[in-house]
């Protein structure tokens, strides 16, 4: 009987497949039957009686264990209600003992010595039965609780990844209708006076929109590709704001092939332009420069700002919180976006880890 314990510890492992578990259980039952038969043989009973006793006791005990295990699968008592569990196990053990006794009594008739032994061994049988049923109950609770937790965790992970996809999608929808309608308005103006420029702007706008749509997936893009997309955006804004807007871009060649999430820079530059153009009335130069460090691509965007109109505290601005959130979702870090405001220059530094 004591061998059954090893079977129970295996159950708890969770790495075994269903069939393997079943095989181990059968092996354990057989081993238990044989060991019990061996004990009875030692007491001097015939081989037949020993085996019968072992088989009946252990098979009935297996049924009791199955019952309690199955029961606990669907209903688990609340935490700390051990007494209830103990009572339940005791009742099951007594039931098992009674049935066991009755069965053995009725099939092994012609041996008064065995009948006496059966009667005398009742307390020992009860406690061993209780022990094993109790153990089975404990293991079942742990097993099924773990299963439940695994299930909940799986759901949670699924929900999170869904939410993350949705959020990433939303965060990339940074293209503001404001920008689109104002650009169209500029084209309307150009059509009358400078049709060639109007045509050029339509093409730029189309390329820009196409680029935005193309980047539906989250696949990283190279810095040079992202920059090209950004330049389209800057060109359109330059047409809109005329001489007020200019841009300086610098980077070393090594940065070209570095990767970054698509459409990450656009909201930063959009923010810089808005900030620059709406906070000051003079000429606005947006500077973008990129540097490569060991495992990091660092991109700095600078714009002039007026500390009197917008205090740095409010200055983290429109789209930047979205960028920060996105970086957090993608890289699990919150320190990848920094902003500083110093002497009329607002600087946004974004760091993209390279793997």
């Amino acid at each position, binding site marked *: 009987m004591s061998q059954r314990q090893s079977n129970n510890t295996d159950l708890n492992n969770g790495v075994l497949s269903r069939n393997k578990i079943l095989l181990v259980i059968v092996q354990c039952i057989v081993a238990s039957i044989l060991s019990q038969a061996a004990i009875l043989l030692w007491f001097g009973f015939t081989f037949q009686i020993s085996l019968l006793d072992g088989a009946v006791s252990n098979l009935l005990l297996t049924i009791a264990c199955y019952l309690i295990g199955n029961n606990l699968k669907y209903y688990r008592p609340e935490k700390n209600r051990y007494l209830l569990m103990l009572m339940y196990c005791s009742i099951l053990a007594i039931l098992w003992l009674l049935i066991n006794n009755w069965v053995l009594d009725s099939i092994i008739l012609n041996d008064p010595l065995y009948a006496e032994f059966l009667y005398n061994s009742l307390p020992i049988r009860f406690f061993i039965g209780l022990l094993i049923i109790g153990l089975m109950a404990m293991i079942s609770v742990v097993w099924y609780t773990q299963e439940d937790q695994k299930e909940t965790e799986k759901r949670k992970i699924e929900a999170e990844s869904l939410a993350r996809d949705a959020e990433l999608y939303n965060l990339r929808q940074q293209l*503001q*209708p*404001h920008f689109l*309608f*104002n650009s*169209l*308005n*500029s*084209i*309307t*103006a*150009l059509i*009358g*006076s400078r049709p060639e420029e109007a045509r050029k702007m339509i093409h730029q706008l189309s390329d820009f929109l196409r680029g935005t749509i193309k980047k539906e997936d989250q696949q990283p893009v190279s810095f040079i590709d992202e920059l090209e997309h950004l330049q389209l955006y800057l060109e359109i804004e330059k*047409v*809109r*704001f*005329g001489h*007020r807007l200019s841009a300086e871009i610098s980077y070393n060649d090594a940065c070209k092939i570095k990767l970054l999430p698509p459409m990450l820079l656009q909201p930063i530059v959009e923010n810089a332009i808005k900030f620059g*153009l*709406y*906070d*000051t*009335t003079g000429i606005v130069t947006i500077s973008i420069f990129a540097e490569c460090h060991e495992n990091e691509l660092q991109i700095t965007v600078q714009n002039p700002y*007026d500390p*009197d*109109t*917008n*205090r740095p*505290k*409010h200055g983290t601005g429109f789209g930047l919180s979205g960028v920060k959130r996105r970086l957090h979702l993608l890289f699990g870090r919150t320190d990848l976006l920094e902003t500083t405001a110093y002497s009329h220059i607002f600087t946004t530094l974004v760091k993209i880890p390279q793997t």
Partner: protein
Amino acid sequence: MRVVLIDDEPLARSVVNEYLRSWTDFEIVKECNDGFEGVKAIAQHEPDLIFLDIQMPKINGFEMLELIEQPPSVIFTTAFDEYAIKAFEEHAVDYLLKPFTKERFDKAVQKWMDQRVVTLPKQNTKQLLDHIQNSSLRNERVVVKTGTKIKIIPVNDILFLAADDDYVKIHTSEGSFLKNKTMAYFEKLLGEDDFVRVHRSYIVRINEITRIDPYEKESHLAILKSGEKIPVSKTGYPKLRQVLGL
């Protein structure tokens, strides 16, 4: 008719300019890049009608109108501002959504011409501004005019407010500024989180209060960090105690 165009995008102004050419009675007296220029131009030229963009550098279109004592008739031109559009519709002020057609533009101008005879669209503009201010959508800052200069005061810089006839005196660490608004307006604008109205004529930033002293019978004085003494009325005192958690 004298017209002023105020829009930070030169191309957007050129559209209006072009569309207005067929209206022979209209003359564009000034084109402005931002609200500051707008305030100046309106004072100088006293136009009959202005075309005004909302999103502009430094101060937006609404803030600009606030600075003008007698705002002229306005046709708003904007690309996208759901909130503003709702406000326009409620107050029957005309607006043009960029990009707009010549037909739509003509309709707006015609409507203004017709209305001018019956009512004053200026009235509507005034109501619109009140509506926009009351909704406290743009409560991050207060725009005031000091002489010919325009000062933008972030709400965070305001220490306390004192009623002064038809004006409210806004006290900041940089000095005080007058604005032609009511105390009730500011009470609503500033909210109850940072400010408390301790007196019919005073609103104080809660964090600025260092001490409350009894003063005469049934009234108190709030002493500010700057040393200013603000009277606290009988009704203001319980409010003050509440926000300070006394």
